């Protein structure tokens, strides 16, 4: 039974403009397996699965599902046919109810005499939610009123209620808490009995734990499929980036270091009930990590340090300047990388050059009476583009067309170019592939050695442990505990104080 293939992709190609996202990919999914797909951003994982799940169409190649040719016109058609996908970004619609979300694009099935029978829809929705073990959600609640994780679960229910033969899980777990993950893993496990799962994740550990087989994609090509017996982290990593990663992925040293000079001093920072009386001192050349569960207030603290939210009490002083808003922060040589990169840190329709130059326009005009010439701008932008190895045809390329990793490099470039001394990084490696991640970490180490101060907010415990001189764990808006960098620090200990 397990060796029978349910889905075969042969020689599939797909281009977006000049970018070739898939180049003749072959892929086989067996019945009853959880098949991992892994690869750097832009390697083609999502393109492959979105074609299979009806979100878009291939330019060339064939797909066979259960022995028949397969080319669904829409997500709903694919779902009806037996393939459902849970997408990376939020797939729920905030303005309508949970029930309506569950039957998105499919309200037609409740139509009686031309009208939609809302009560029946709600009933059906309640059943679907209960079926995957979440009964705390009222189907009539507007989806926008739910938190991100619950919305993900709604999406999960939306797919699972069709009892699909194949479920595609596309990097969903990054958004989920421990409880949410457990629900997902349970469902993935149960799906083995009914069919198969394609599981996409950046998290190698996770993928190794969950999957039976895994396929590595790189630059739109299929590199290799690993059987469970062949699972080997280094080999997989090497396949992913096409070369062997050198030893230290994170920082090499294990001792906390910093210059004596204090660059950032925050006292009694209070933002509503999200952040309550936090004190923080960051020195030059120091990386301070802030971790915790997603709602512990760490993101809000990061915003507060940068002056992006109004403080209800306390103050933040950087380089002797009190930070009351973003302008002051930037003037005080601070930089901020938001966790929502596309919506908060980039102007997607603008060019790389426009984005990188945006924080340094005053610098660019300095000494010329404010005059900004294209030549000066090109020179200004060329530095970070080279330093960060941003992959683009030229600095005029529109940022929206870049891959996630390159986008994040542009954001970093913006702050490096203008000489920021204090950087607030909120989930700087979210949605970024290993290669870029490593580049970011190296950059952080370099900045540290240059005497810059870095506050890194992150949900990834390993990254915090790997990079930080000091680590603050937040819980309910306050700092629960502070850890110093050291070889004896264990993840267990930290997670303990988070919960």
């Amino acid at each position, binding site marked *: 039974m397990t060796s029978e293939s349910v889905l075969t992709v042969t020689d599939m190609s797909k281009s977006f403009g000049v970018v070739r996202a898939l180049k003749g990919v072959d892929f086989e999914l067996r019945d009853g397996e959880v098949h991992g797909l892994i690869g750097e951003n832009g390697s083609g994982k999502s393109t492959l699965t979105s074609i299979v799940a009806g979100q878009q169409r291939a330019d060339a190649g064939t797909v066979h599902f259960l022995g028949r040719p397969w080319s669904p016109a829409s997500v709903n058609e694919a779902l009806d046919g037996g393939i459902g996908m849970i997408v990376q970004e939020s797939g729920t619609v905030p303005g309508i109810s949970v029930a309506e979300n569950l039957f998105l694009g499919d309200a037609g099935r409740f139509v009686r005499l031309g009208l939609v029978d809302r009560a029946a829809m709600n009933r059906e929705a309640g059943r679907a939610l209960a079926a995957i073990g979440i009964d705390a959600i009222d189907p009539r609640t507007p989806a926008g009123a739910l938190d991100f994780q619950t919305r993900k679960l709604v999406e999960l229910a939306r797919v699972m209620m069709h009892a699909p033969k194949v479920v595609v899980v596309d990097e969903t777990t990054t958004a989920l808490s421990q409880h949410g993950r457990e629900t997902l893993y349970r469902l993935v496990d149960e799906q083995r009995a009914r069919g198969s799962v394609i599981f996409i994740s950046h998290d190698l550990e996770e993928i190794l734990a969950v999957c039976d087989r895994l396929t590595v994609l790189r630059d739109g090509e299929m590199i290799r499929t690993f059987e469970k017996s062949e699972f080997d982290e280094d080999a997989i990593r090497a396949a992913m980036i096409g070369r062997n990663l050198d030893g230290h992925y994170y920082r090499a040293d294990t001792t906390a270091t910093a210059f004596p000079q204090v660059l950032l001093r925050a006292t009694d920072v209070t933002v509503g009930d999200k952040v309550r009386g936090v004190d923080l001192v960051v020195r030059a050349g120091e990386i301070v990590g802030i971790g915790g569960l997603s709602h512990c207030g760490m993101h809000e603290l990061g915003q507060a340090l940068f002056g992006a939210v109004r403080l209800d009490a306390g103050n933040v002083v950087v380089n002797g300047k009190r930070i009351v808003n973003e302008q002051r922060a930037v003037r005080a040589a601070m930089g901020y990388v938001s966790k929502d990169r596309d*919506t908060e840190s980039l102007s997607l329709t603008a060019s790389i050059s426009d984005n990188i130059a945006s924080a340094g326009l005053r610098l660019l005009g300095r000494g010329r009476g404010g005059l900004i010439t294209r030549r000066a701008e090109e020179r200004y932008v060329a530095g970070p583009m080279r330093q960060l190895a941003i992959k683009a045809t030229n600095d005029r390329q529109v940022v929206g067309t870049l891959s996630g990793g390159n986008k994040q490099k542009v954001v970093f470039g913006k702050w490096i170019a203008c000489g920021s001394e204090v950087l607030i990084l909120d989930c700087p490696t979210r949605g970024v592939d290993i290669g870029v991640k490593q580049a970011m970490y190296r950059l952080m180490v370099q900045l540290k050695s240059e005497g810059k101060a870095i506050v890194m907010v992150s949900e990834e415990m390993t990254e915090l442990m790997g990079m930080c001189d000091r680590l603050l764990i937040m819980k309910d808006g306050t700092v629960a505990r502070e850890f110093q960098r050291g070889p004896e620090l264990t993840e267990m200990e930290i997670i303990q104080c988070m919960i």
Partner: protein
Amino acid sequence: MGAGLMRRATGTLIIPVGAFVVLTALCSLNGVSLFHTDDSLLLLTRGVATTMLTSMALAINLNSGRFDFSLGAMATLSSVVGATVAIQTGGGFAVMALVTIGTGILLGVVSGLVYVLLGISPMVCSLGITLLYEGISFAITGGANVSFLLDRGLTSFAKSTLAMVLVVAVGLVLVYTVFDRTRFGFDYRALITGQAAAVASGTKEKRNAVLTYAVSGALMSVVGLIIASQMGYIEAGKLNFGSIGIMFTAFLPVFIGGYIGRFSNDKLGFLLGALTMTLVGLAFAALSLSSTVQSITNALLLVGFLMFLSNEERIGRAWRSVTHRRGASPSGPAAPTTAATPNKAPVTSGVNAS
């Protein structure tokens, strides 16, 4: 549940009832009556009918971030066609109504198709469409008024309170049904806040947009019909955006409708918003305010209400801190798109986006 119901009822009714009380008080202070003529009821219902339908026509597209300058031009052109056909065939009001509404739907479909096929910004598209429809109206009539002042058959419609009440009732029920109860409406509401997600799950966005424009055209054709019937003639010679004035009267009701929609249903909100504005209009007339004073007052009302809407959280926080200190205040301006108030977001975002 009881407290929730109370809150909803209060939120729904506070604006119209408040306006009524204030206006009545103002009028009686000045020794006049808000409903001071025999025709007051007709005026009220007719005002509510035209304002409500215009607000709905504006709002249904604005909700999806589509601002439409061509509402007035659609009203004019559809009634020009309707009246011209009725006069030439001698078919009376039934023909005029049918042709007007049919033309309105057609114009809406054309607007929608132009937008969908050209794929240009809806506001820009509507600029072109406005010029187009105004030009066609002018070309049909040679710029002259289409006049039927003495044709009682055509003018009696807008003189009947009952007919106006029916227009309001039918309009409200139809729009509610279409947008809240049909498959089209479900798709429509999904597209408002989840354009990408809805399209990804197979919702036909283009068809939905064209149909929405068609409904908007139908609503505006009824407005055109009422205004034509009430005036006895149609001014068809407006060129160069002369027709966009009607849109401005619908702004405040749209915002009021959006606000009320958070407590009950936005369609009911448009009715109550239209009612509020019509009452204000009656009060202006009763107090015999000059047009200058009127336009300034209207502007202040609009700005005032928007200030309230845009600063509601701040006001709420201030209010709570005055009344009782403990209160789970929502985070400040830092969380821009949590969409905790989904009904509010689309309405303001539509105009913001402009």
